[in-house]
């Protein structure tokens, strides 16, 4: 960590958070939240958490701000005028917030100092991971090996959580009929935007690079920051870029809804399937070292490395499909007719 940059970036972050809450216009709040996400990524990098920073970079720049803009586009930009009775709510909220902050501040007095290498958190489990990873799995990126091997069970259910979120969005929003009973006519009469040649040309040039880069991130996650989550989000962001700059229908022609949901299922199934393969071969669930019996010319150490790669690919496919599905449902209000 570099304390000079730490202090300046944290100050910027606090200013940004205040502004996000205070600003009256929802679109402006979403845009300032985008700047907040940029600064967050800088903070993680400065504290040495490169994988977290990579995830924040792909998520913040590619997906989350665009989701906010899509939701605001489908609803309204204005924030309502507050009634007088809201003053009590504000006061109660302020008191509750202050009490919470005070309790946390009292608890903070007992924390070990920031960046102390001898805290309890750094002394018990993580030394094993740091010293043994290269020996056990031949993967230099400790975060990837802990994510996909030592704590593989945890990550499997994280992927399942994301899959469930995708299902929930489809269940809430997707409408298959043209006319819906409880559907009030939308707030805007949306005009067809005229095609912008410059944006289309640049998007067409950039999308192959983005997708190639995403595949590189997935495949090279063992040796540098990156992995399935980051690669999947970047792949999804490339499709979002296509949907924004070109037509909504054009992306549906490449990646239809049926194919998309199928891909999400395949990704989660690939993850669980590798685990069950280990179980079938006679080892524990997600114990990849047994895979050396199936894979040609690998010993037990390299088998763990290859097993991690398979899992990262599954995660990438699932995350890509879910990100695309969430964006499409939100931007078209579940009708899949036209988007941003």
């Amino acid at each position, binding site marked *: 960590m570099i304390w000079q940059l730490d202090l300046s970036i944290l100050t910027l972050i606090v200013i940004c958070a205040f502004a996000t809450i205070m600003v009256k216009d929802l679109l402006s709040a979403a845009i300032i939240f985008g700047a907040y996400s940029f600064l967050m990524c800088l903070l993680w990098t400065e504290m040495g958490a490169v994988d977290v920073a990579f995830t924040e970079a792909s998520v913040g720049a590619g997906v989350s701000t665009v989701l906010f803009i899509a939701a605001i586009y489908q609803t309204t930009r204005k924030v309502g005028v507050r009634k007088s009775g809201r003053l009590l709510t504000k006061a109660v909220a302020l008191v509750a917030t202050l009490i919470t902050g005070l309790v946390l501040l009292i608890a903070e007095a007992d924390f070990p100092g920031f960046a102390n290498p001898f805290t309890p958190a750094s002394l018990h489990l993580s030394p094993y991971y740091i010293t043994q990873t290269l020996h056990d799995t031949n993967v230099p990126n400790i975060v990837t090996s*802990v994510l996909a091997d030592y704590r593989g069970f945890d990550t499997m259910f994280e992927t399942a959580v994301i899959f469930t979120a995708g299902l929930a969005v489809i269940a809430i929003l997707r409408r298959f009929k043209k006319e819906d009973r409880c559907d009030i006519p939308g707030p805007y009469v949306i005009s067809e935007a005229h095609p912008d040649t410059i944006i289309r040309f640049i998007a067409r040039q950039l999308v192959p690079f983005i997708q190639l880069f995403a595949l590189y991130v997935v495949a090279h996650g063992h040796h540098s920051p990156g992995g399935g989550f980051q690669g999947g989000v970047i792949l999804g962001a490339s499709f979002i870029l296509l949907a924004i700059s070109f037509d909504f229908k054009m992306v549906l022609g490449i990646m239809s809804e049926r194919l998309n949901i199928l891909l999400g299922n395949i990704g989660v199934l690939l993850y669980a399937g590798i685990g069950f393969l280990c179980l079938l071969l006679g080892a524990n669930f997600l114990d990849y070292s047994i895979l050396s019996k199936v894979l040609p010319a690998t010993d037990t150490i390299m088998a763990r490395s290859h097993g991690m790669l398979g899992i990262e690919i599954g995660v990438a496919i699932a995350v890509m499909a879910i990100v695309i599905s969430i964006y499409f449902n939100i931007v078209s209000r579940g009708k899949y007719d036209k988007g941003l």
Partner: protein
Amino acid sequence: MQSIISDYNYWVYILLMMIGFYAMLAKNNLIKKVIGMSIFQTAIIIFYVSIGAKEHATIPIIAHGHGAVEAAIDVAHYANPLPHVLMLTAIVVSVGTLGVALAICLGIHRRYNSLEEDEIEEQLQ
């Protein structure tokens, strides 16, 4: 100066948590509440990553040259990878929760044609 550096991260985490919590409680607009929830999430992530930071430590990727002799790995030389793993998945899950929250907002807007909390309550009564 030393005390400021050693406590500043925790102060900021508490401050951000308070901002997010206040927005979730007091704001009338649902999308503002969702933004508050996102800020709350990032405050938690700051807390975890700050726990994992170590002074004079490099990133948790072991430097290995091609054909270099494997030196003994010093634990204090690498940042704690465990909080990074937990928070990496937390960020991606936060996209999922953000999507679900915005979908619920859109569903409410489809039904009640408003995103303001008190207007929806009035229509409910």
